[in-house]
């Protein structure tokens, strides 16, 4: 039995039944479920300490401010950030990648400048650059992928040559591929490019050390790491953050405002205009506590083992009828399986699985350029987290055959 057995009970949604059958949640790459302690921490914030932050001059407001800044400190420790003020909160990683495009990007990229992405990016790390490209005339270059779903680095020197920025995912939300972040950061820096890492799928599942990653910015999103929706975090180097123009203007981010203009306040608040989601920060802090108590190494170990089990079971049971995209070696991937089965459309597969309360995602997973490269319109994706176990995989493997009615 896995050392993580028993954790399922901490997640109230997982006790949900439909038609007296249990829920089998295999969609954590989309959003994770929340342990009761995260839900309770948020409720407790509102029941005891709610007030606006940084502005109040009374005890309750101080408690709320401590709750927000305490959560920031927890997140900073969790990713080994060198300084707490280098951690910036926003509503999700999408906002943070847009922030980078609109502040660092606008300040540093002009006509003809090259930005390097990979073919396995999520739309959140593509569309902001398309928008900037349309505005500024920058060029987008794409690191291709190998048939095994790895980044194909054979042409990396040419791609990075003269590039101003490399922005890429630390783990594909479609293929599960774990990319060589430190290596790519070093190559990009050697070529004079700045480095952004979309760690949305990395931080929830693997120990993350932003210093070891060697990048300049690392962004991720709370709801995929047991935290609530409505919060994401960006780590960035002080020098770069200080040199960047502000993103959204308003309260909290100013030092002074007159009818003629304004000046910005210090980090991290310079990038946090308006009332922040203190409850969501508190929830993210609690999620980080939970993950740390279980241990990121243990979580990774559990997922590698379950990933191996899943790949073995699905292939043993369905042989050539199933194709699982992405790296074949569990140690070089996360617990995310995009597959095709007997040519059946993913939406129909998902429907027959849902009939047995098995939750998977069908579609392009916000990675349409990757779908095109894979030659698929859509895939079915099952994805794991610490609360999954072998029985969940067995249910998936068993139920898949019900999709045979759609085989053409």
């Amino acid at each position: 039995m896995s050392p993580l057995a028993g954790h399922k009970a901490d997640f109230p949604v997982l006790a949900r039944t439909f038609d007296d059958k249990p829920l089998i949640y295999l969609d954590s790459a989309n959003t994770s479920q929340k342990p009761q302690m995260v839900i309770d921490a948020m409720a407790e914030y509102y029941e005891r300490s709610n007030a606006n932050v940084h502005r109040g001059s009374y005890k309750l407001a101080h408690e709320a401010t401590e709750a927000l800044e305490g959560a920031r400190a927890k997140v900073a420790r969790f990713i080994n950030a060198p300084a707490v003020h280098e951690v910036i909160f926003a509503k999700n990683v999408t906002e943070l990648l847009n922030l980078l495009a609109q502040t660092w990007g606008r300040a540093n990229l002009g006509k003809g400048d090259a930005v390097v992405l990979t073919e396995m990016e999520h739309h959140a790390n593509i569309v902001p650059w398309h928008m900037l490209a349309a505005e500024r005339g920058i060029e987008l270059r794409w690191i291709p992928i190998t048939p095994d779903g790895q980044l194909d680095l054979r042409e990396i020197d040419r791609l990075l040559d003269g590039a101003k920025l490399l922005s890429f995912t630390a783990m594909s939300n479609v293929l599960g591929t774990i990319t060589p972040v430190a290596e790519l950061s070093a190559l990009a820096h050697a070529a004079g490019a700045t480095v952004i890492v979309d760690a949305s799928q990395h931080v929830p599942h693997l120990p993350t050390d932003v210093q070891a990653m060697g990048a300049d910015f690392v962004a991720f999103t709370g709801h995929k790491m047991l935290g609530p929706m409505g919060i994401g975090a960006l780590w960035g180097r002080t020098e770069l953050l200080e040199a960047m123009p502000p993103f959204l203007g308003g309260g909290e981010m100013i030092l002074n405002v007159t009818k003629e203009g304004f000046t910005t306040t210090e980090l991290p608040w310079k990038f946090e205009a308006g009332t922040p989601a203190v409850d969501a920060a508190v929830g993210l802090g609690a999620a980080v506590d939970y993950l740390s108590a279980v241990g990121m190494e243990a979580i990774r170990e559990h997922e590698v083992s379950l990933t191996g089990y899943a790949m073995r079971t699905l292939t043993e049971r369905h042989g050539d009828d199933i194709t699982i995209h992405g790296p074949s070696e569990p140690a070089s991937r996360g617990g995310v399986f995009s597959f095709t089965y007997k040519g059946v459309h993913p939406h129909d597969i998902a429907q027959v699985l849902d009939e047995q309360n098995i939750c998977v995602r069908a579609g392009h997973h916000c990675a349409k350029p990757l779908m095109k490269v894979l030659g698929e319109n859509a895939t079915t994706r099952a994805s794991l987290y610490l609360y999954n176990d072998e029985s969940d995989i067995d249910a998936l493997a068993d139920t898949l055959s019900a999709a045979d009615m759609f085989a053409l």
Partner: protein
Amino acid sequence: MGLEDLYREIIIDHYRSPRNRGELGEPATRTEGFNPLCGDEVVVFLDIDEGGVVTDVKIGGQGCSISMASASMMSAAVKGKTIDEVQQLTSSFKSMMSIHEREIGGDGSESEADSIVDAEFPMGDLEAMRGVVKFPVRIKCATLGWNTLLQGIDEHPAVS
């Protein structure tokens, strides 16, 4: 509710043997529709004559059983109809599908909302799609072809 409400026999039949599958060359129009939620793509080729009659329609693209069957049934239903009739039929079909779609927005112009309520065009085989309403996530699949058709009509030189 069981899957048999969704996957009625006639739907599976249209899925397995899609009608009017293919392409049309000039002067037919070609219109692409996307379901942003699941990646389905439907392509509608449309020939309309000067009298406003849909003389030919072909369907391309890829999608799930519901989107493909719905587009296939649609192609069979609209061929030979006038644009007016097609528009009424579309309204009726959406009305059958779309209490939910209207509520969460849809394309939501008010006049359309009215016409949804008024229209009651005979549905024939299309009746088989009624079960989709019980599976709200599939409504977008069922209406994809129809929305693409409407757009195609709008863009057709015989119309504008």
